[in-house]
């Protein structure tokens, strides 16, 4: 531009309006700077101002155009509307940003609160690693410790398997050695586990036999130990014996094994049949009770001082020398013998073995002595007075006495049983001659008896069996009887000739005579019945005719009804009486098989049939159905309420009006409309309908979907368990104690950032 070249001010770029605005703003306290005036003042020549003039003119023109009167402002309501529109747009933009998250959450299978990760981490437990990392030594000792630990070679770090020291060892050790060591370790561990398992298994064993054997073993071991101790250290042996005795006495005194030994078991089984044994058992119980009473108070104290009770001494002076006593005596002697001796074992001193064997021999001898005395005792018959009865059968301390007593008793029992047997045999001898007829003759007898019974029954009850069709019933009855007779004779022929059979023959002849008689009678009665029936049918026919006339009327009515109700086209009677399969389909032998049953039931059936013969069962049902229908829909059909003369003029000369159409009311469709044999009550109160949902619940929008989903079973009865778990998974999981914050804009921003970044990646 020329002005610019001249070094003058280029006005073309001045935004006058802006200047003015600036001035306006500055107006007030600020000093007035007349920019235009100053600028105009600086113009010295008029040369080349034509363009400026033009411009100015244009500007002023524009100004004039611009400075028209203001348009009338919008109506306030419209203004508001506009404002709200804008505001709505803004809010919508703001809210729609959330839409994605919300729909996602709504669709989600399961929501676990809190939704954002930071909140979830708040309640997280600090792990040991985190804690150790956060640790800074502060005090003097801590610092020193840290220094020490830091320099130690035995620090195990998380990312390494071995410590430095271990690494050194590994480096120093060969692979072979290491493997061997490992093997050894593994073996040890294995053995340990085996042992553990073994103990666990043994602890669980409940077998009685096992425990018995185990106990016996323990006892044997204890004795052996005791014997060895006897040789080594008699004083200790004495103490040990005291302990053993105490245990045993306690066990006996508590009466733990009452009734479990063989003797008491056996006596129990025999006592029910033997009075003496019963007595013995009663005695035995009494003794037991007494003993228990006696010991009852001081059971807890050491009951080893059995010598204190003087009452028993008189009873059995020798008997009391049981194995315990023998052992005790031996111990005493040994103690005296070896008072001065030092403690030695058989291993160290082989000479001791001799003394041990001597001890054993002594014990045995003493035992034999006692056994003899026990035998004497048993002979005296004082077995019942025996106190020590609750000793288990395998008890080495008291077995011999027990055995002897038992043997004596058993012998007695045996003899008793034998005598009883002999008596029985004597009694039974003459019996079988009478009581054992051959089975076949027995069968024949039974048949004969039956026939006789029938023969007896038939004449007494002539009315009892009126067969429905006489022609049919007449023939089979005698034939049946004949068959039976044949069977009976056949059996007699085949049976071996014995006196008993002869007897039955005589009887059978009588029976046959009876059967003949009854058959004849039966035939005559049947004939009479037939006659009577014919007469009855004649009279009945008249009645029937009358009835059929009625029935026809009714039928006509019913037909009319049916014509009115279009669907019904089944005749109830024919429907009910028809049977798709009949007895003719049955195989022959089934008939034979059922003969008896049939015979029995024919009578009752016929009676029932007669009883109900008069009833019109079908009509009753139809009537009931009609009644139910009427009850449920009490709408009367097509009632013509226009009676003559009402609602119209009448008289000579007046043409008859067309009759108004009657209001046709059709009855509502019934479920049982097409089935004659069914009545379905539709108005019956069904409380289940009250439990139905009234509207389709959220989120379903249509009933069909809702119902289809509901129809799918979710229980374990119909599904695999895993699937049931998947179906019944909770939609929202909100653990207790967690803060559920409202969604923040932060999450939104993060999501957007993520989306952007993922787009960029793509």
């Amino acid at each position, binding site marked *: 531009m020329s002005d610019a070249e001249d070094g003058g001010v280029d006005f073309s770029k001045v935004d006058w309006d802006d200047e003015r605005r600036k001035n306006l703003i500055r107006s007030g306290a600020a000093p007035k700077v007349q920019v235009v005036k100053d600028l105009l003042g600086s113009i010295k020549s008029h040369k080349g101002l034509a363009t400026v003039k033009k411009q100015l003119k244009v500007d002023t023109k524009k100004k004039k155009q611009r400075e028209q009167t203001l348009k009338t402002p919008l109506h306030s309501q419209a203004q508001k509307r506009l404002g709200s529109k804008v505001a709505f747009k803004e809010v919508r933009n703001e809210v729609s940003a959330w839409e994605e998250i919300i729909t996602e959450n709504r669709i989600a299978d399961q929501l676990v609160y809190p939704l954002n990760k930071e909140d979830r981490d708040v309640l997280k437990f600090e792990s040991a690693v985190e804690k150790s990392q956060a640790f800074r030594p502060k005090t003097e000792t801590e610092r020193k410790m840290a220094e020490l630990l830091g320099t130690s070679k035995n620090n195990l770090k998380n990312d390494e398997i071995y410590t430095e020291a271990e690494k050194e060892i590994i480096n120093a050790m060969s692979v072979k050695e290491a493997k061997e060591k490992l093997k050894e370790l593994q073996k040890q561990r294995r053995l340990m586990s085996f042992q553990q398992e073994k103990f666990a298994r043994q602890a669980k064993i409940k077998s009685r036999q096992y425990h018995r054997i185990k106990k016996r073993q323990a006892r044997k071991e204890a004795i052996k130990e005791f014997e060895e101790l006897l040789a080594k250290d008699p004083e200790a042996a004495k103490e040990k014996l005291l302990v053993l005795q105490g245990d045993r006495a306690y066990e006996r005194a508590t009466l733990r094994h009452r009734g479990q030994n063989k003797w008491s078991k056996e006596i129990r089984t025999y006592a029910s049949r033997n009075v003496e044994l019963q007595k013995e058992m009663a005695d035995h119980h009494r003794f037991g009770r007494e003993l228990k009473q006696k010991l009852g108070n001081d059971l807890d104290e050491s009951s080893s001082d059995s010598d204190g009770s003087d009452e028993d001494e008189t009873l059995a002076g020798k008997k009391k020398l049981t194995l315990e006593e023998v052992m005790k005596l031996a111990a005493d002697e040994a103690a005296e013998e070896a008072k001065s001796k030092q403690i030695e074992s058989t291993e160290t001193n082989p000479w001791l073995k001799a003394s041990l064997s001597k001890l054993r021999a002594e014990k045995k001898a003493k035992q034999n002595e006692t056994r003899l005395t026990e035998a004497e005792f048993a002979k005296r018959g004082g077995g019942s007075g025996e106190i020590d009865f609750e000793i288990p059968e395998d008890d080495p301390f008291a077995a011999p006495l027990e055995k002897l007593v038992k043997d004596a008793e058993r012998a007695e029992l045996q003899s008793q049983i034998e005598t009883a047997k002999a008596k029985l045999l004597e009694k039974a001898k003459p019996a079988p001659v009478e009581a054992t007829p051959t089975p076949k003759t027995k069968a024949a007898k039974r048949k004969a008896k039956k026939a006789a019974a029938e023969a007896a029954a038939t004449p007494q009850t002539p009315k009892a069996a009126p067969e429905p069709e006489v022609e049919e019933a007449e023939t089979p009855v005698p034939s049946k009887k004949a068959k039976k007779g044949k069977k009976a004779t056949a059996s007699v022929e085949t049976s071996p000739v014995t006196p008993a059979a002869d007897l039955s023959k005589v009887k059978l002849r009588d029976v046959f005579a009876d059967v003949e008689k009854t058959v004849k009678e039966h035939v005559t009665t049947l004939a009479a019945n037939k006659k009577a029936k014919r007469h009855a049918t004649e009279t009945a026919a008249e009645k029937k005719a009358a009835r059929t006339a009625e029935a026809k009327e009714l039928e006509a009515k019913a037909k009319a009804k049916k014509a009115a109700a279009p669907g019904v086209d089944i005749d109830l009677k024919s429907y009910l009486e028809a049977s798709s399969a009949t007895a003719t*389909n049955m195989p022959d032998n089934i008939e034979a098989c059922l003969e008896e049953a049939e015979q029995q039931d024919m009578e009752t059936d016929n009676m029932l049939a007669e009883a109900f013969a008069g009833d019109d069962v079908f009509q009753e049902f139809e009537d009931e159905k009609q009644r139910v229908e009427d009850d449920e829909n009490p709408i009367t059909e097509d009632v013509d309420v226009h009676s003559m003369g009402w609602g119209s003029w009448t008289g000579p000369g007046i043409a008859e009006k067309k009759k108004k159409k009657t209001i046709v009311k059709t009855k509502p469709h019934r479920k049982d409309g097409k089935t004659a044999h069914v009545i379905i009550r539709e108005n019956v109160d069904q409380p289940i309908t009250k439990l139905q949902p009234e509207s389709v619940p959220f989120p379903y929008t249509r009933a069909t979907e809702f119902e289809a989903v509901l129809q799918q079973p979710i229980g374990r009865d119909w599904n695999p368990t895993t699937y049931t778990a998947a179906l019944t998974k909770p939609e929202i999981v909100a653990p207790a104690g967690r803060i559920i914050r409202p969604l923040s804009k932060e999450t939104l921003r993060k999501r957007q950032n993520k989306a952007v970044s993922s787009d960029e990646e793509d």
Partner: protein
Amino acid sequence: MGKEDVKRLRHIKKAPKPVKKLGKAALTDAPTVYAKRGQNAVKKEIDEAQILKNIHGHAGDAVVLRAKAAEKINPNRARDVVTKAKLKTHKKRIAEGIAKTAEAELLNTEEAGYLKTDDGSLTYNVKQAEITSSIDLATATRSFSLDLEHGPYRFDYGINGRELILGGRRGHIGVFDWMTKDLLLEKDLLESVKDVSFLHVSTLFAAAQRRWVHLYDEQGIELHCMKQFNEPKLLQFLPRHLLLSVATGTGYLHYLDITSGKIVNSFRMKEHGNPGAISLNQSNGVLLSGGHHGQVTMWTPNAKEPLVSIKAHTSSITGLTVDHLGNYFASSGSDGLVKLFDIRTYKQLSSYKVRGRVSCLDLSQRHNLALGIGQHVQVFQHVNRTSGLQKPYLSHFVGGDVRQVQFCAHEDVLGIGHERGFASILVPGSGDPDMAGLLHNPFESKAQRREREVKMLLDKIQPNMIALDPSTINRVRKAPEKVIDVKPAYEPKPDPTWALLHRFKRR
């Protein structure tokens, strides 16, 4: 048994493995569902519609039904985005579950037994002794008979099929484990016993005695005496609802809630009168009774009128039974007919004329029908499939008038209570071999029994939920259809005397 008999001795074999409905071929046909895990990730993404379609050919009836129901779910027709998405995921999950259930059917490896003769002769000639001689010992011990003096006997199997209770009319009661024959309780009640029934656990049972109903525990101690139930005749326990129903000789039907001891409802069965037989429809808890007039009527504790009455026979009904799925019922009348009806349509499927009087009958889980005829028992096979009863499958003579027959669930065993005791016979192929272990657990321990007791209490279905169609509870309530009674333009004034009469006419 003669020599010839020995020669043609029949064999009862375990069935050769029948082709399972979900065989290997089926697996390959439906690659989407059964594809090996991790083999191909893309394969898993195949849509659920395909899965459901594939089910139809390969799985059992129940699963197919479920698949059909699931197909009705149409997410695209939902009016909401969220609903659409939710339904989509749910449908997929359901389809997967159905596929898994179909797969699990493979685990039902047990097969039903059957009876087959070598020479092709008819099976009803086979005696129990022959059956027991040709099967394993453990099963053979299930065929036994008890000669008892206090008959005729009625009996009941416990829920787990292990315990059996016998009740003789002359007052004898016995509870025992019929598999091991361990006697748990025996008692003389000193008055006539009409019927016995276990309650939800076999440690409790009810006895319908001469005057009242009594409840006893396992030791025979009387717990309750229900004096409200006069002259009880038949007992029926509803295990899912924990209700004891009592039909009395006076024609009343009582429902007792055994959890609370309250009587839910008791009413007179009006014209249906004294029922000859009652039976429970296990699928919906509706009680069926057969009366004098040959009508089978259906009852709930919610209404004093029968929901449905079906004219089944021309004379009184002697026996009535419903199958365990609640699809069929069979009845016998004194008119000598045995009939099979479909409960869903109330249509008669077959009718059969029987020689002799049928005193009782029972349907097994695999639709074998046992009839007690006089002193005999006859069993017919697959009565729902064949057109009527054609020839008996088995026949058995007990030696006393049969009073009750009942199949034991999940066992090939038929119990027979009769005049002279109790008999248990083997009917190969009568029970469902696949056990539902949650309820029917024959190996139930004490702890499990207690657990089940609690669970049954928690799962108890309230009596007001008993209805003909129990799935009505799943439906959204519809407004009852209103029949608009258009009033005539002119209504003649009724004569007052006639109006009164009209009112009384209804009663």
